[in-house]
């Protein structure tokens, strides 16, 4: 039965990385109250940035965080500022403007296909990286080292984001804005700047996820789509807007995906994920951390 344990561990590790990819989604939803359908594409952009950073500099993949985090932050910041902000301005009286879904989907199409246009359809991996194929042996079990690092990154990032929101002045301002935009404005908080920052942070976390994926994963223009739907499921499972919920939701999905196929076809395990998701929505629609989408 050791294999169940092995699969569970793999599921938790991989799942936490899923959670990390979805962290920005839940954060952005928490503040802007919109689902960012372009989140997978942001992850993809992050993966390309990390890929090129490693390939061109030859540095350790994790070292590229120094570059990826600020680049992705700025990318998200200005994406929101230039593309999404006008929607909020045009629909200032709507709390959850559905039109943003369309706009972010438009961003998704543009980003994915721009990448295709620029970098071509090739699948890329970083051949020479010190993490490639590293496995940890633990009592007859094999545990992927890059996934283990991914797990640490997920937990640390979630904790960092949580602490940032709880303990810093900017974090409080973000929470305040998420709870009441108008009242926050009256406190001297610039609503749209907060949106930009939240979007930037969300995008930066996607960048962190990208860096943890790059050592063992392929990079190609449509890679984001693979994580997109998964991200939606994770954030609802964890409770939209809940930071810890995203990581936990990711782990649940990861464990199902990892342990499920040991008892059935992997394609059915995929079905189980959807089934469980729908079941969860019926039973506890507010997600695991059911404080109506807030921190």
């Amino acid at each position: 039965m050791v294999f169940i344990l092995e699969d569970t561990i793999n599921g938790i590790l991989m799942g936490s990385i899923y959670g990390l990819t979805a962290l920005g989604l839940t954060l952005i939803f928490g503040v802007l109250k919109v689902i960012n359908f372009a989140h997978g594409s942001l992850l993809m952009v992050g993966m390309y940035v990390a890929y090129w950073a490693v390939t061109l500099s030859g540095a350790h993949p994790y070292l590229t965080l120094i570059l990826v985090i600020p680049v992705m932050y700025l990318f998200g910041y200005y994406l929101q500022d230039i593309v999404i902000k006008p929607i909020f301005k045009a629909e200032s009286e709507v709390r959850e403007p559905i039109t943003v879904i369309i706009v972010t989907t438009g961003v998704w199409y543009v980003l994915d296909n721009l990448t295709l246009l620029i970098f071509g359809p090739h699948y890329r991996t970083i051949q020479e990286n010190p993490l490639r194929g590293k496995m940890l042996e633990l009592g007859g079990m094999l545990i992927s080292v890059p996934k283990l690092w991914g797990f640490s990154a997920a937990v640390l990032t979630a904790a960092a984001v949580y602490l940032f929101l709880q303990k810093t002045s900017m974090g409080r301002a973000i929470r305040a804005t998420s709870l009441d935009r108008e009242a926050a404005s009256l406190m001297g908080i610039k609503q749209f700047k907060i949106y930009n920052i939240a979007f930037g942070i969300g995008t930066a976390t996607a960048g962190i996820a990208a860096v943890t994926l790059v050592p063992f994963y392929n990079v190609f223009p449509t890679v984001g789509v693979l994580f997109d739907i998964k991200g939606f499921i994770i954030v609802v499972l964890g409770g939209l807007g809940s930071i810890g919920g995203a990581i936990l939701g990711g782990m649940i999905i990861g464990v199902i995906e990892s342990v499920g196929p040991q008892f059935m076809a992997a394609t059915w395990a995929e079905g189980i994920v959807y089934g469980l998701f729908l079941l969860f929505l019926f039973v506890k629609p507010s997600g695991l951390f059911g404080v109506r989408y807030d921190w």
Partner: protein
Amino acid sequence: MAFLEISNIDVSYGDVQVIFDLSLKVYEGEVVSIIGGNGAGKSTLLKTISGLLHPQQGSISFEGKPIHVSPPEEIVNLGIVQIPEGRKLFTLMSVRDNLIVGGYNNRANRHIAQLMEEVYGLLPRLRERESQLAMTLSGGEQQMVAIGRGLMAKPKLLMLDEPSLGLAPILIRDIFETVRKIADQGTTVLLVEQDVKHSLSLSDRGYVLENGRIEIEGLAEALLENSHVKTAYLGA
């Protein structure tokens, strides 16, 4: 020179014009009441001063600086702070965090600890509730938090939008007493109210706003005796 001077503003909300050619002045250290029924444009007026809305016509200046095109955060930085109608607390944040966010602006954010002490001094109840989520408080306590949050912004001019709305008579008295104390400590207060009796009795001057226009203005005592005010607002 007037502290806050509003000259001939027109304000629209969507397609509907709400305020017509309105002018008013507030002098430093005063308590001024604006009274009028709902739909008269009181909240719209406060939102316009706060920069949430902008006038189509006319100007607003504060300490001599024009502010009618400034965004809300700049106006807060200048020292005009509004406590919005219906309190609008950050419900899922603690009382303490609500207060800290109140001191977010440039003028206040270096003095948070000191300001917090002052607020707790004025509203000792809040210290007891410090770590509770704002949503778990009673209506009166929530209004206290809203006032405390406004004071955290280190206001030169504090604007209150119907602080008594929806409160039991017994709590209304407490609220107005607090406002009185704030004014006594030297903060200029602009009060928008429907509870005419209470608000005018603690004010220096008052304006009566009807259908987006100032209909009557004058000293508070005079207004309390005004026959129109009496029939329309005091139910005499």
